[in-house]
């Protein structure tokens, strides 16, 4: 192996502070987990199986979709397809962290990715755009989100009756509102706003006309293409025109 240096310095105090930073949102994740636990029990999983699934899979939307196709038998290929499609956004999320992750040794890099999920990634990506390097939130924030997801699932399977209708409390919107708040708190240059419009339009088109669950990846890549052709510190007019013609 060639000599490689991995200069990223993890700050354990920061890992702890990021744990507490995401603690408030984790209370909502507990409620969302409880809704999953209840759904899993109703589809015939045992309490232990439901908790095991939340512990090892740790990807809420795909778990809801999986128990939705649960029955006496489960078809393997559709299960793989739906889980992969819903979670394919992780591919892009991980890739976007690479400029920081390449400064971390491969062992730690992949260990940290075990805890990658929407909320802690959104915080890290927002910090990166604002010029702060924050992989600690993936660890500390990921840990509190993971624990909240497991605890929530356990509450749902044993006391699910307490939360029959999480939608009535708006709990299905926790993640959407959180991600929106993160997006609006990030860098809003003209380039980013154009990317948002392209991404939103592409995502909507994919959601309407492509097979289900592909819209996130399609929208994100379409938005990314704006960045590919429109670099930040260049003559923006020329690159902008190239982007517009390249988009059709």
């Amino acid at each position, binding site marked *: 192996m060639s000599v490689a240096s991995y200069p990223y310095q993890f700050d354990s105090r920061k890992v702890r502070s990021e744990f507490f930073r995401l603690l408030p949102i984790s209370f*909502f994740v507990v409620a969302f987990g409880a809704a999953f636990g209840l759904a899993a029990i109703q589809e015939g*999983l045992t309490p232990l*199986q439901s908790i095991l*699934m939340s512990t*090892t899979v*740790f990807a809420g939307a*795909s778990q809801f979709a*999986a128990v939705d196709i649960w*029955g*006496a*038998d*489960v078809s393997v290929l559709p*299960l*793989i397809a739906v*889980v*992969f499609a819903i979670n*394919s*956004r992780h*591919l892009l999320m*991980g*890739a*976007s*962290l*690479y400029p920081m*992750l*390449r400064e971390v040794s491969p062992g730690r890099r992949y260990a940290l*990715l*075990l805890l990658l999920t929407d909320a802690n990634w959104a915080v890290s990506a927002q910090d990166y755009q604002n010029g702060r390097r924050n992989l600690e939130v993936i660890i500390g924030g990921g840990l509190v989100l993971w624990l909240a997801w497991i605890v929530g699932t356990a509450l749902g399977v044993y006391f699910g009756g307490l939360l029959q209708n999480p939608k*009535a409390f*708006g709990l*299905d919107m*926790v993640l*959407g*509102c*959180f*991600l*929106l708040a*993160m*997006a*609006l708190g990030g*860098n809003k240059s003209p*380039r*980013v706003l154009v990317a948002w419009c392209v*991404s939103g339009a592409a*995502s*909507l088109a994919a*959601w309407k006309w492509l097979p289900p669950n592909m*819209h996130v*990846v399609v*929208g994100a*890549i*379409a*938005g990314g*293409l*704006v*960045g*590919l052709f*429109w*670099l*930040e510190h260049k003559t923006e007019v020329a690159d902008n025109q190239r982007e517009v013609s390249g988009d059709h």
Partner: protein
Amino acid sequence: MTIETTTLGVLALITIMTVVTLITRFGGVFVMSFVRINPRVESFINTMASSVLIAIIVPMAVGGDLGALAALVATAVSLLVFHKPLPAIAIGLLAAATVRYLL
């Protein structure tokens, strides 16, 4: 191919889901480790990163009920006014709950 949901079958299904999800968590970083990072690639992934959020939210706003739309609008407005994410999210959830209660 189908797997029966016996105890062992469920374990197999959970294992499959775990492996597929792990592939998505690791895959993007693994592929990037073969890509030479230049300013253009970096610009692509940075713009893609902020687009992921929009790509998740827009169909949620368009395809959801009025409560979902109210939650997102209320969150956006509160955030732009107060600049604090957590109160904005709480106001968003409250908006969804209120709209759903009234309708």
